[in-house]
Structures are given as C-alpha cells and as structure tokens.
C-alpha cells in the first residue's frame, strides 16, 4: 500500500508557485474553496515513487507570516494547526532568484515553526541574464535546508525537486532564528507559562489572533498568569523580529549570492550599467539636470509674463473701478500685488515637479539615489540620508520627517541639521526673480546663463549640505554606521495620470499653503507701509511741496516724491531704516531688509513683500519685475538690484535658515531647542558672511 504525505507550496506572490504546482501535479488537480471563505484552494496529487504519493496543496501567495488579509491568513492557520488534515509533512517555499532576499523572510519564518522546509529557487534560467551566481552548499548549510534550483519556464530542476521532497525526513528542522532573541525577558516568561509549546508558534498566535486549537490571544491571559504586551508593544517586537531576520538573511546572502552586473545581459541591467556607472552615471545625471533647468526657463517665460501683466492690470482695474479709499488701496497695492508675487511662479514650480515626477515614475530616481549613495558615504553620511536630501528639493519639513528611518541617532541628527541647505521650492521664487533681474539673458551652447545660474544655486545647496555633514561628522565623531538598501524598480513609461496628479497636488499645496501666509503678511505690511507716526508722515504733502517748491516739478513727479517720503516715514520705513546699517554692507536698502525680515516666516514671502512695498503709493500699472528693476540705490545711484547686490541676495537665501516651520519641526524631531537654535545661528551667520564677502568683492 502506498504512503501519502502532505506538501504545502508556499511563496511570495509572482514567484511562479502555481507553475511549480502544475509541474508537480500535471492533470491531477482539484480546485475548490476553503471551508467558509471564498479563497481558492488548489490541490493535486504527485506520485513520487511507487510507494509514495504526495498530496500537494497550493497555498495563497503571502510575503510573510504576519497576515493582513484573509487569504494570507489561510497559510498561517494551516501551519499553526497540527490537527488540520492538510497539515504539511513538508513545506516547499517557492522563491524567485531575483528577489531572493525578500522571499527568504517568509522562508525563515516557516523554518522556525520546525516543519521540514525545502527552498525551491525558481527562475534559475534568469541567473545568467542577471549575472547572478549562488553558492548552493553554503546556502544549504546556513539556511539549514535543502535547495532545489528550478526553472518552470524551461521545465528544469523539477525531477531534482521531487527527489528532495522524497528525502524530506533528512531535512533539518532546526530554526534559523532563536525566537528568544526578539525579546529575551518576554520570551522567557512565555516559556515558563507554556512549557510544552514551541515558542515561535506561540509568538505567532499571540501577535495574530489566529485560532490555534481552542486557544486565542485574548484567552491566553485568562488561562494562565501570563500577561501579554499591549498591541503597540507587540507591533514593535514584530518590527524587531523582521529587522533581525533581514540581518540574518543579509549575512547569509553576502556570501551565498553574488551579482556581477558586468556579466548581466538583459536590457534593464544594461541600462543600469550605464545610468549608475561611476563616471557616465554622474555625467548623464548632470545633463538631465541641465535639460530640466533650461526647460523650466524656456517653457515658463510666456505664461509667467502673462500672469505678471494680468495681476498688474487687475490691480489697476480695482483702483479705477472701486471708490477711492484705504480699503481699495489695500486691495490693489497690498493683496493683489502680494498674491501676484506667488501666482507668477506657478508655471516654473509646475514644470519642476513635472520633471521630478517623470524621473520618479520612470524608475530613474532610484538610480540617482543609488549614485548619490556612493558620494554620501565619502562624506560620512548614511545612504539613507539621500532620500531626505533629495526630497528636500520640494520642502524641508517632510524631508526632515523622512529621517525617522535612519537608525543611528547621530547620522539622523546630521541629516536633520543639513537638510535645510537643500534648495527647497520656497527658495525658487526668490532665485527666479533675482536671476531675471541681474543675470543677462544670453546663452552659451544653447544653455541660457539664467538656467545655468539656477542650476548652480541648486548645486551650491546640495554641496553645502554634504560639506556641512562632513564637518559635523568630524565634530560629532560618528562611529555607528547603518546599511542602506534600495530596491531598483523596473524602468517604465511614466503614467500620465500619476504625473498630472503629482504636479497638480504639489502646485496646489504650494500656492494654497504659501498663499495664505503671503496674503496675511501682505495685509500687515501694507498697513505698516501706509500709516506712520508724527508730522513727517501726516504732513508729507506740505513738507515735500515746500522742499521742492523751487524745482518746478510736474504733478506726477511731485506725487512720486510724496509717496516716497511717506513710505520712508511710515511704520515700516522707520523699522527698515533702523535695521539698514546691518544690511547695508551686503548691498541692500531698507526695503530689501524688510523683505528679508518678513520672509523669515517663509522664504517665498520675500517677493510678495517687495511687490507690496513697491506698490504702495504707486499709481503706475507696473509688473513686479519692472518695479524692482526700476529701484535706484539711494546712496550709490544706479539700479538697486545690480549684479553685486543680486548675487549677494542669492547667496544669502542659499544659506540662510529663513523658515520658521523648519525650525519648529527640527525642535519636534530632536526634542530640544538646542539644535534649531544652532541651525538658526550658524546658517544665518554663514549667509551674512557669504553675502557680505560676495558683495564687497563684486561691487
């Protein structure tokens, strides 16, 4: 009489598990549902030899034994219940050779249930394409199992798998991980409370509320004196377990699996070889950056001019249409001008996010992260710091929050401290307006000077972050290192819908989020610029008329002189002139000083502030850019925004910590005011010194 054994086929989704099932069972298959649930149950018979038949059950695909769905739960319920008629005598874990690391997580969990487990590594025919080689004896020794290298596509290795299954009794049931290592104190208590149970099985029962015989997690406390942990603590222990498993898997694969990209032959690998090449990779990335910045300038100039003119017209229309008075002036000179200062940048911001989104969607951004990792390590940063630094180009706040996955506190702290140097999108409006004023419009080999300047500012931001990290690394003496693993997605054509939604969402949050602050600050600034104390402000008309009585000025000229006098003696003018001595050495006048102070709340307020200040008392229909271009340096004469003061301003904003929200998030993440205070002082001092040096050198 022939003997029957139960075999469970288990594996991650898309590992070819069903193909293995088909190869083993042929036409001897039955498809039904598990009792009570509509999860497909496939089973079949495989004749191993004359006296041994295998009842094979193809279980639903799962990534781990930490089930989150009904079909994943089927796998755990079977493995934890020895009384189940289908309980396996041997488990075959089907894995995919390209994703062996991820697949081994599930393998080690099943192995720790002390059930004989075979590792079937599928898609072996892809190994030569990918340049992968496996040290099977080494892997078998360290994973304490038997391995079958198979390819269901080429129908190879199936006979060897059957032979391995036949000798399943020779397979060690020794676990890969000692469960007590997860939390020795907790597991020791568990062992005392349930002396005859397998620790890892108990752990799965406790963490997953899976029925095991008549016992479930809630009843455990009731039956014995054992007190289990809170759900939050159990989840933390589960995470710890996953990390420990991956540490074990990494160690094993370090020797057991080698990938020689130079031997790989597939298209993706060939593309990776070029795009992540230690020289060409950087050259290609550099040219992609050049293209992006050039396109931002080329494509957005027309819509930007239209928006600028539209806001100037709207302001003029409001003044002409509404009855004259303070509120009409507030609308025309304060609110509309201030908002115009942010809306004008929508095209450029939308294009920037369009390119970033396309790079992310296509899979290229992961290659950039991989490329940058090489550079980062030389400066003592973790590879994990790359993600916050790159996402800092949008906003430093989520970037700083993204540092939470860096295990080493010191590396995380350094990343938090240097991330604000990365050029965030709030700096973009400041850069764009100043560049358009002080950098000539010419080009070199088809690349405009303005686009090159913008790119240089991004590189300065990134370079400062990396260099500061290097200095901090020396000062803080980091010893611990974290490892960095990035999964390279396949290359694909970006989905238009995804790209469109990202651009829309990012642009909207920029305009709405920043718009509210700019609107509020514009109102406050307009009031401060339109009212003032004392006779110098209230009697401005008489004073100016008397002062220029002998000059025979036209009424337009005289009105400009009055408006200028009033502005100088308004609340904002008095404040601005008080801080002017501090900023004069940088090439700025008091109006720029006010814009710098008000933009401490958020950098993009700078342009809105200048737009509001220059609009007050100005009856001409002018665009923001023209108003700024027309400003004259009161001491030296000539344009206020010239090459020297413009570069000084650009560098000031490249280094200054002009963002209250970032300081707040740094305080929250470091749980101390010490680090945001340090950031504020160092970055502001650095910005001042660099701006001062550049102005004095260039003027």
């Amino acid at each position, binding site marked *: 009489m022939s003997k029957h054994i139960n075999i469970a086929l288990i594996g991650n989704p898309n590992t070819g598990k069903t193909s293995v099932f088909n190869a083993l069972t042929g036409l001897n298959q039955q498809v039904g549902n598990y009792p009570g649930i509509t999860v497909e149950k496939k089973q079949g018979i495989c004749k191993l030899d004359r006296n041994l038949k295998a009842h094979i059950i193809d279980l639903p695909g799962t990534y781990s034994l930490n089930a989150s769905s009904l079909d994943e739960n089927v796998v755990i319920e079977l493995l934890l219940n020895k009384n189940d008629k289908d309980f396996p005598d041997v488990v075959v874990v089907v894995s995919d050779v390209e994703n062996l690391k991820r697949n081994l997580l599930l393998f080690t969990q099943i192995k720790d249930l002390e059930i004989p487990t075979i590792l079937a590594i599928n898609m072996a025919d892809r190994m030569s394409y990918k340049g992968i080689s496996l040290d099977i004896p080494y892997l078998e020794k360290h994973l304490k199992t038997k391995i079958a290298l198979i390819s269901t596509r080429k129908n190879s290795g199936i006979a060897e798998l059957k032979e391995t299954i036949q000798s399943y009794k020779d397979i060690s049931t020794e676990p890969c991980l000692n469960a007590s290592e997860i939390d020795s104190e907790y597991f020791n208590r568990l062992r005392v409370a349930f002396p005859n149970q397998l620790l890892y099985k108990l752990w799965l029962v406790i963490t997953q509320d899976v029925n095991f015989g008549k016992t479930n997690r809630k009843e455990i406390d009731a039956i014995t004196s054992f007190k289990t942990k809170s759900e939050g603590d159990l989840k933390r222990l589960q995470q710890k377990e996953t990390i420990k498993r991956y540490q074990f898997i990494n160690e094993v694969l370090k020797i057991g699996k080698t990938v020689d990209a130079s031997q790989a032959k597939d298209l993706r690998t060939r593309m990776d070889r070029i795009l992540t090449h230690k020289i060409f990779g950087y050259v290609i990335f550099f040219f992609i950056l050049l293209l992006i910045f050039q396109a931002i300038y080329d494509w957005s100039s027309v819509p930007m001019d239209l928006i600028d003119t539209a806001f100037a017209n709207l302001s003029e229309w409001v003044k002409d249409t509404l009855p004259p*008075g*303070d*509120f009409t002036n*507030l609308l025309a000179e304060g609110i509309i001008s201030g908002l115009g200062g942010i809306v004008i940048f929508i095209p450029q911001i939308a294009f920037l996010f369009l390119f970033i989104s396309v790079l992310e969607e296509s899979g290229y951004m992961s290659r950039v992260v991989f490329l940058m990792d090489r550079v980062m390590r030389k400066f003592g940063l973790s590879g994990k710091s790359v993600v916050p630094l790159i996402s800092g180009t949008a*906003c430093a706040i989520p970037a700083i929050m993204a540092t939470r996955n860096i295990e080493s506190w010191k590396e995380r702290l350094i990343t938090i401290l240097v991330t604000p140097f990365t050029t965030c999108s709030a700096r973009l409006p400041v850069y764009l307006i100043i560049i358009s004023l002080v950098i000539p419009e010419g080009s070199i080999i088809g690349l405009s000077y303005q686009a090159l300047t913008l790119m240089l500012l991004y590189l300065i931001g990134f370079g400062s972050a990396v260099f500061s990290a290097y200095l901090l690394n020396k000062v803080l003496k980091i010893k611990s290192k974290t490892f960095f693993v990035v999964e390279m997605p396949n290359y694909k054509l970006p989905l238009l819908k995804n790209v469109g939604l990202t651009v829309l969402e990012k642009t909207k949050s920029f305009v709405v989020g*920043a718009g509210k*602050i700019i609107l509020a600050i514009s109102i406050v600034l307009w009031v401060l610029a339109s009212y003032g104390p004392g006779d110098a402000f209230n009697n401005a008309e008489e004073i100016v008329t008397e002062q220029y009585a002998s000059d025979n000025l036209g009424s337009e000229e005289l009105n400009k002189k009055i408006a200028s006098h009033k502005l100088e003696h308004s609340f904002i003018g008095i404040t601005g002139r008080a801080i002017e001595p501090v900023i004069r050495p940088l090439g700025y006048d008091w109006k720029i000083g006010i814009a710098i102070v008000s933009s401490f709340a958020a950098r993009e307020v700078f342009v809105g502030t200048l737009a509001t200040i220059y609009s007050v008392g100005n009856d001409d229909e002018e665009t923001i850019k023209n108003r700024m271009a027309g400003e004259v340096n009161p001491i030296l004469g000539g344009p206020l925004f010239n090459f020297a003061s413009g570069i000084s301003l650009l560098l000031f904003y490249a280094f200054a910590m002009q963002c209250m929200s970032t300081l707040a998030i740094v305080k929250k993440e470091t749980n101390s005011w010490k680090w945001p205070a340090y950031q504020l002082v160092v970055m502001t001092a650095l910005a001042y010194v660099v701006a001062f040096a550049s102005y004095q050198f260039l003027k």
Partner: protein
Amino acid sequence: MESPVIQKVLVGAALLIAVGFLVYKYILPKKSKAGKDCGNGSCGC
C-alpha cells in the same frame, strides 16, 4: 464703500484677521501632527 470710515473699518477688519491668522499659525502652540503628511508649502515652508 464710499465712506472713508467704512473703508478704514474694512482695513481694520482685514488687519485683525491677518494678524490673528499669523498668531495662530506661528505663535500658538500646536497639537502634534505626527503621521500627517506635510507636503510642500502646506506647512508654511
């Protein structure tokens, strides 16, 4: 809106709302936003 007094009252109201918003945004202590996605600009950066 013809009367200068009404215009001044409207300016005062606008100023009050603006200052109130800025105080709320930057000075009043906030509840923890942990876990909430703070996207570009939505946090005032």
